């Protein structure tokens, strides 16, 4: 036992220093020189003010803007310092209630819309910070945006197409639109 104690202790300390201090600090150093924007959170700066991150969604409820995925974070939606999903099971009545409420809100904001409701627009994301919606979810909202803003539908649809990201390398993930980027572009239309 005694012959084990010294190597155990010293090896533990040595490997801890290498993997717990040297390694993360080395990666931080490399990251800050090679990918400074990404390492710092892909922040969006406008007129000298930081207004968000390219990768973190924000809450939108104004009909003038595209709405993102519902967020289950607490106490406020899109709380970027307490990520998480709803964890509601498929048979939980609470899931039905909350989805029904979201459908009602969507329909109330756009009474004439007869398109089927895209699932991602009424279900909470896993992180609560999902920056994207699917193509159908953007198309569903395009009519409302055009009407409320008093612009041509074709302009809105053109903007959605411009901000659509296809599957990465044609294989990975799903086609999607970054909601914050799209809304910033909407505000940029003059």
């Amino acid at each position, binding site marked *: 036992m005694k012959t084990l104690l010294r190597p155990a202790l010293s090896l533990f300390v040595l490997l801890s220093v290498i993997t717990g201090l040297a390694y993360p600090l080395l990666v931080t150093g490399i990251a800050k020189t090679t990918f400074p924007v990404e390492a710092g959170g892909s922040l969006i700066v406008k007129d000298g003010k930081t207004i968000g991150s390219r990768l973190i969604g924000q809450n939108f409820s104004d009909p003038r803007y595209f709405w993102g995925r519902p967020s289950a974070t607490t106490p406020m939606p899109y709380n970027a310092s307490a990520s998480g999903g709803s*964890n509601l099971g498929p048979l939980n009545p609470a899931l039905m209630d909350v*989805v029904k409420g979201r459908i009602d809100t969507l329909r109330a904001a756009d009474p004439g819309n007869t398109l089927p409701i895209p699932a991602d627009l009424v279900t909470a994301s896993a992180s609560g910070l999902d920056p994207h919606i699917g193509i159908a979810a953007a198309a569903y909202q395009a009519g409302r945006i055009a009407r409320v803003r008093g612009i041509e539908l074709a302009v809105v649809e053109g903007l959605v197409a411009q901000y659509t990201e296809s599957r*990465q390398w044609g294989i990975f993930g799903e086609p999607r639109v970054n909601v914050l980027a799209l809304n910033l572009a909407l505000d940029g239309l003059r």
Partner: protein
Amino acid sequence: MTTHAWTLLGLFLAILLVTVKPMGLYLAKVMAGDYGFVRKTESPLYRLCGVQADEEMVWLKYAFAILLFNALGVLAVYALQRLQAWLPLNPQGMANVSPDSAFNTAISFVSNTNWQGYGGESTMSYLTQMLALTVQNFLSAATGIVVVIALIRGFARHTAATVGNAWVDLTRVTLYVLLPISIVYAVFLVGQGSIQNLDAYKEVTTLEVTKYDAPKLDADGQPVKDEKGAVVNEPAETATQTLAMGPVASQEAIKMLGTNGGGFFNANSAHPYENPTPLSNFIQMLSIFLIPGALCFTFGRMVGDTRQGWAVLAVMTVMFAGLAIAAMYFEQQANPLLTQLGVDPTFGNMEGKETRFGIADSGLFATITTAASCGAVIAMHDSFMPLGGLVPLVDMQLGEVVFGGVGSGLYGMLVFAILAVFISGLMIGRTPEYLGKKIETYEMKMTSIAILVTPLLVLVGTAVAVITGDGRAGIANPGAHGFSEILYAFSSAANNNGSAFAGLSANTPFYNTMLGIAMWFGRFGVIVPVLAMAGSLAAKKRLAVTEGTLPTHGPLFVVLLIGVVLLVGLLNYVPALALGPVIEQLMLFATY
């Protein structure tokens, strides 16, 4: 299943299988000290630490060394959490973690489970994330790998007293396998958008003001409750968003490579800062299986017959593919109750999933992370369709042997292989042997302990939680799903997976203690008998292959082994599964 899902699965398996041989060969050579640069750079470290590198250990000493090393890990992780408020690198001023949560997390990260009762970005200081949690991401992975290497040496050696030197093995795996890959991998993740900094959290001004209900607080900062005990809310609004920061990518890389799975953030790999793009996600999936797959080749090479390794890999691959197809299929189904409300069913079950990943990537990831004992998630398993959620449960309950954790998956599978030759030996009336080693009473005793310890922990733990008020208090979803949440928690803890049906409120003294015990014995209750078997196998003579020897590299043995894993691993859980996901599935489609 969509064409996209088939393509994704096919591409994943193809790339994985290409990596097996080179990675497995590298592992074998590093562990044998075949590389000059390894021997040259490691020897000063051994002198510094007082390690007698050329002194081999008998199995009992090897086991003591491993236990001692891991016990030190538990103490260090516990202490750092309990003291973090007074230590540096804590820009958010995180408070010291409570004793029961710190105990649970310490065992969780040391046992390679990485179950998380806490939310990372609201609990842990950067120092704790790095010096406690990242360190154990490396060392628990190294522990798993050296144990399987010792077991393989037991098969490879004959009439030998020793199984290797634990200190040398741990050092080699950590510094020459895990560390270099992690550095490259972490930088790649940053390139995709993962963050890596030590800054305080950033407050940004959002485009829109968010209105929400906040709990009303009294003068002491405690939430006000009405006569019925419900929390009273008041309207609130905010024009800012606080972005959590931290050294994420460095932890993320080893979290996946070492099948650890403990997220820097509460949302784990679903968080865009942990797993920003579908490409980073694909690489994360590959990196979970990289070492468990490669070790099969390492095994074949070390025992001098690579066909043996390919046979074990075939068992794992076939079982995995079946499970992955099931998960992707069930998640592509829409929740019929939502379809009734007018939701378009073509998108599948999107509750708890990220748009950039969608159904196919989420279903595949869920299977990979639970087949391997990783436990990272990109989608909330609690919100899966009933049978979609059954797949991760089954993955874990098979004993984490379908690829499994780094090292632990292969030693678990080899234990099943010994059981398979034992059963076939009984059928034909011959003394069973595996890889030229006679399987006798002692090996079968150790095999039985290794196989039975986890079902015992899972089923007894679940039963205790279900019949006690403290256990039932954690349930989030009503009905059969609530039972599934508890069953999932104990399956995950005892099999050292770490994923959760996360609705369960597990950060309570009851669950922290119960799950802590399950994780410790689920890990070391298997490691010790496996090392004992390594010692006894190493001491045996090697038998020559005769006409009566059961070949263990052909399709017949592959089928036999799959059968044994399914029967022995799963039968224990059929009644419990019937009470949870199966009932829920029937109810969901009956109401429709």
